[in-house]
């Protein structure tokens, strides 16, 4: 098996080893590739085995011709090719090869990017926002194909109709927020409304095509019924503005939300979800039955938090990581039972005004090793608990 050799900033001059025979393997890696040199006098064929079938037909392998005296770079080598990619050379004579990997940017600085922490289905890092007049109108989904976009279209809203406001403005982008130790973030600020029973905030959702609204099932995760359990959500965020006009941070405030209630919904993560519970961190849904898990920790606007929420029937949990005023990192996990809902849609903002720096969705039961990585990564961006002036100043 060829082990990856990393490119970096000290230079990498390349160590090419003669092919051990006609067969070899390389670990899959979306940033990895196979570098083959043919110093022989005749052309060779490199064949990459493609596992799996489609419509009961075996997927064809990929054959690459390497003329005499040339080289070829083959990649990237994604997980779809199996844990190990099988490579065959038509002849080993004159063939040398290297498995080469280009690290992601943060990795070279000693810490990875959010996208690289877990096997996300979707991941959004506010560092990758597209801006118009200082507001985020699109945040790239670096793991999937659902960017966060403006929330347009029809959506009933607690006695008012978002149609008369929509699309909602994009949140204000903060290039370096002290709430996240200098990370980029968004703040979903409030905007003027008429006739709404609730204040409205700038917001973004991955469940829109930019034309129809969040309630269009065409735009749900796995339309029409969403992702089935188990699934999990991670959010690095902070409570922002109170939900009630003229309110204080004692009012309900969500940092990640879901609202649809016909066949299920995703978790609403925040404090004191409307009408229920104490002002603790909570995960709730507004689908078939109102259930929640409440963390035994009071949520305040003074704390930046990493919230991990797993929706998995009786094995569900809510986990909150924060720092106290002395800077000690604390983690609390509460387990509980959540009903058998699907994850239809989600959004940030709209009826809450959070600060957000990163969010992600994983399918299946989360790998605890991945959660360790997410916690360790997030710890760098969680400052000690303290009051901070609203942003932008």
């Amino acid at each position, binding site marked *: 098996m060829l082990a990856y050799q990393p490119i970096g900033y000290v230079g990498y001059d390349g160590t090419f080893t003669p092919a051990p025979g006609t067969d070899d393997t390389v670990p899959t890696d979306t940033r990895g590739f196979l570098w083959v040199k043919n110093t022989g006098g005749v052309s060779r064929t490199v064949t990459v085995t493609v596992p799996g079938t489609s419509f009961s037909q075996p997927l064809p392998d990929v054959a690459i011709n390497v003329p005499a005296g040339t080289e070829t770079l083959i990649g990237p080598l994604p997980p779809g090719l199996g844990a190990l990619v099988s490579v065959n050379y038509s002849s080993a004579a004159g063939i040398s090869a290297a498995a*080469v990997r280009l690290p992601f940017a943060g990795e070279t600085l000693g810490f990875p990017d959010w996208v690289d922490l877990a096997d996300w289905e979707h991941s959004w890092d506010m560092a990758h926002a597209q801006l118009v007049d200082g507001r985020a109108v699109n945040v790239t989904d670096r793991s999937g194909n659902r960017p966060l976009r403006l929330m347009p279209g029809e959506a009933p809203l607690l006695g008012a109709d978002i149609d008369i406001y929509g699309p909602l403005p994009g949140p204000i982008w903060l290039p370096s927020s002290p709430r996240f130790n200098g990370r980029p973030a968004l703040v979903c600020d409030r905007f003027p409304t008429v006739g709404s029973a609730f204040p409205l905030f700038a917001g973004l959702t991955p469940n829109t095509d930019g034309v129809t609204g969040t309630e269009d099932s065409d735009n749900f995760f796995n339309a029409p019924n969403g992702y089935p359990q188990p699934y999990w959500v991670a959010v690095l965020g902070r409570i922002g503005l109170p939900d009630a006009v003229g309110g204080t941070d004692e009012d309900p405030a969500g940092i990640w939300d879901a609202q649809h209630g016909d066949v299920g919904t995703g978790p609403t993560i925040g404090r004191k979800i409307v009408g229920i519970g104490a002002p603790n961190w909570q995960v709730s849904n507004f689908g078939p039955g109102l259930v929640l898990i409440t963390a035994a920790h009071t949520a305040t606007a003074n704390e930046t938090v990493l919230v991990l929420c797993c929706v998995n029937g009786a094995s569900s949990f809510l986990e909150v990581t924060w720092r106290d005023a002395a800077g000690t990192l604390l983690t609390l996990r509460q387990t509980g039972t959540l009903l058998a809902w699907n994850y239809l849609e989600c959004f940030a903002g709209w009826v809450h005004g959070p600060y957000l720096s990163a969010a992600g969705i994983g399918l299946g039961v989360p790998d605890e090793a991945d959660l360790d990585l997410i916690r360790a990564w997030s710890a760098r961006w969680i400052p000690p608990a303290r009051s901070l002036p609203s942003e932008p100043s």
Partner: protein
Amino acid sequence: MALLAPQQIKITGLAPVLAAANAADTVAPDDRVFLLYRNTNAATRNITVVTPTKLDQYGQALPDIVVTIAATTGEERIGPMTQDLADPSTGLITVNLSATTDVTVAAIRI
């Protein structure tokens, strides 16, 4: 000076095409791009990736990234060409070369 256009690695293979390097070349930031240099000259060369002033720390300029490429058969790969390395005024990353004779370069994207 030339703006290096990245060549995309493909599962069907990429035969990279290297071009004569200039004393100063630029590349657009992309964290999936690296630079490949080859030197067939009898002397070594220095490749210098210019670090922009935005990377200054404690009021001190971060030193440029210097990689020496061996003589005659030398080749080096440097990357990723992350956004942090881009000059805010141009949006590009600048790479200088101590001498250009017999040195070729390609920007390659994975």
